[in-house]
């Protein structure tokens, strides 16, 4: 951008490359570039130094339309427990994120309960038990191979009985194309909704920031199956930009509520569109 006297095709090609690198995807890039071109024409602002502010503006506005509040929802005492269902494909950081979230809610003075409803993967229950211990919260678990829906069911009963403020349910990683696994997670949600209308209040899909265009397919299918309330974007402490969430917000209007920035219990932040957009071009 520096040293350019006007906005020309070469510059726009470079802008395209910068955008592509962030994983927003080729369709989103075309859309953004078209809007930038329109804006340059309208404002007859053939000034290269206007490009980056235009880009940031353009992307920020994707997050600002129909904007939901960022961060975890505060539990409302009238609809206790506040139930959060964590879902997503394999290895994205669901179990770790639950540990972080439990810690945060606990420090805010909430009574927190975790449910180990990943009864499939080796040592999944043990892993969540360690996080429960670190966050100093209780956990409901059965044994490996148990029906995840029954773990969810029992955890809700326990949450009611123990007057828990927040119940967070861990589920097994699953690829969105596996019909039987998507049916399984739909059943977990149904079982909860049958117990109390309106729960789970949050259904969060955990998405790895290194994920490319498949993120859209993940969001689409998990949303169709479960009606997602938000996305947690993890591993932003790496070099991946996580730009796929721009396309997801644009196409499906699912907001990012939190981001994971490391493997420790405090490495969770509320999503800040300003910071995120700045980091895209960082």
């Amino acid at each position, binding site marked *: 951008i520096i040293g350019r006297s006007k906005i020309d095709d070469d510059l726009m090609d470079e802008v395209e*490359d910068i955008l*592509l*690198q*962030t*994983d927003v*995807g*080729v*369709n989103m890039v075309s859309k953004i570039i078209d809007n930038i071109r329109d804006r340059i024409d309208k404002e007859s602002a053939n000034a290269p130094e206007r490009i980056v502010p235009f880009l940031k503006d353009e992307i920020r506005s994707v997050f600002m339309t129909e904007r939901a509040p960022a961060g975890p929802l505060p539990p409302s005492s009238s609809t206790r427990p506040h139930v959060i269902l964590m879902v997503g*494909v*394999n*290895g*994205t*950081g669901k179990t770790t994120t639950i540990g972080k979230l439990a810690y945060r809610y606990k420090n805010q003075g909430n009574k927190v309960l975790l449910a180990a409803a990943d009864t*499939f*993967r*080796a*040592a999944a229950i*043990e*892993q969540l*038990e*360690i*996080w429960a211990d670190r966050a100093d919260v209780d956990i409901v678990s059965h044994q490996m191979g148990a029906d995840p829906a029954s773990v969810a069911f029992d955890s809700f009963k326990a949450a009611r009985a123990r007057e828990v403020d927040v119940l967070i349910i861990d589920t097994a990683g699953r*690829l*969105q*194309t*596996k019909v039987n696994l998507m049916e399984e997670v739909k059943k977990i949600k149904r079982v909860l909704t049958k117990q109390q209308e309106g729960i789970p209040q949050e259904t969060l899909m955990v998405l*790895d*920031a*290194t*994920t*490319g*265009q*498949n*993120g859209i*397919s993940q969001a689409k299918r998990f949303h169709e199956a479960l009606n997602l309330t938000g996305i947690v974007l993890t*591993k932003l*402490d*790496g*070099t*991946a*930009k996580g730009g*796929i969430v721009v396309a997801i917000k644009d196409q499906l209007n699912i907001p990012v509520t939190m981001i994971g920035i490391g*493997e420790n219990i405090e490495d969770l932040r509320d999503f800040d569109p300003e910071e995120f957009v700045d980091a895209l071009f960082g």
Partner: protein
Amino acid sequence: ELTGKLETVFKKLRGYGKLSEKNIQDSLREVRRALLEADVHYKVARQFIARVQEKAIGQDVFKSITPGQQVIRVVYDELTALLGGTARDVHFSPVPPTLIMLVGLQGSGKTTAAGKLARYFRQKGRKALLVAADIYRPAAIDQAEILARSAGVPCFHRREGTDPVDICVEAISFGQQEGCDVILFDTAGRLHIDDEMMNELVRIKKKIVPHEILLVADGMTGQDAVNMAGQFQAHLEFDGILLTKLDGDARGGAALSMLSVTGKPIKFVSVGEKLDALERFHPDRMASRILG
């Protein structure tokens, strides 16, 4: 067989004679789009397209297919050749045990891959040992033990002590005593920009001198594949890639990106959570998958 939107674009390009530069340019614009949608890194896509352009120019058009289809054929052949170009066998040591180290980002599928490889080698009549060298992740050792048991192999681990390098060294003596001829070292997930953790891998490598280092990479990785693979290569000089979670609908363009930037072949693909879901890499199948 390439289907879908690429075909419809190419149906428009009919005619005989030589492939014109215009035919090729138009077709390649669509191919570039398909590659980017498939998560191929934008620079890698550009280089690949340039290569294909050179190959395609001046080719005679055959009467039975459209020029566009012909360009696709050149693309497919070139992609298959690139992906399959380098030798893809695991480096086995003439003197056992063969030492294989698994490295990669958090959550890419290393521990599961260690179990799969253990089972794979056991099926080939080898005596494998799985080493649980991840001392950080909660219940990592439990996970490795359970997978080793399913694979029917022993699992070396140390619950006290804090240096993965020592664990790996001890594991080798143990493996030799047990008459193992393949030892699989599962390491903790880490960021390529975490110098301390990358240094840990370098220390393990220097100490045990593995015959094979496999980068375990998630098949749905986007543009970051180039950074990640490039950095792991710079620190470690790995031997091959094991691409995971290809049982989903990710196109897997990261395969081409990582191969282009490191020159290292994809040796295995993981296509499911179960231990039997491991295959040798097939470049032609990957080429079709990337092209959508």
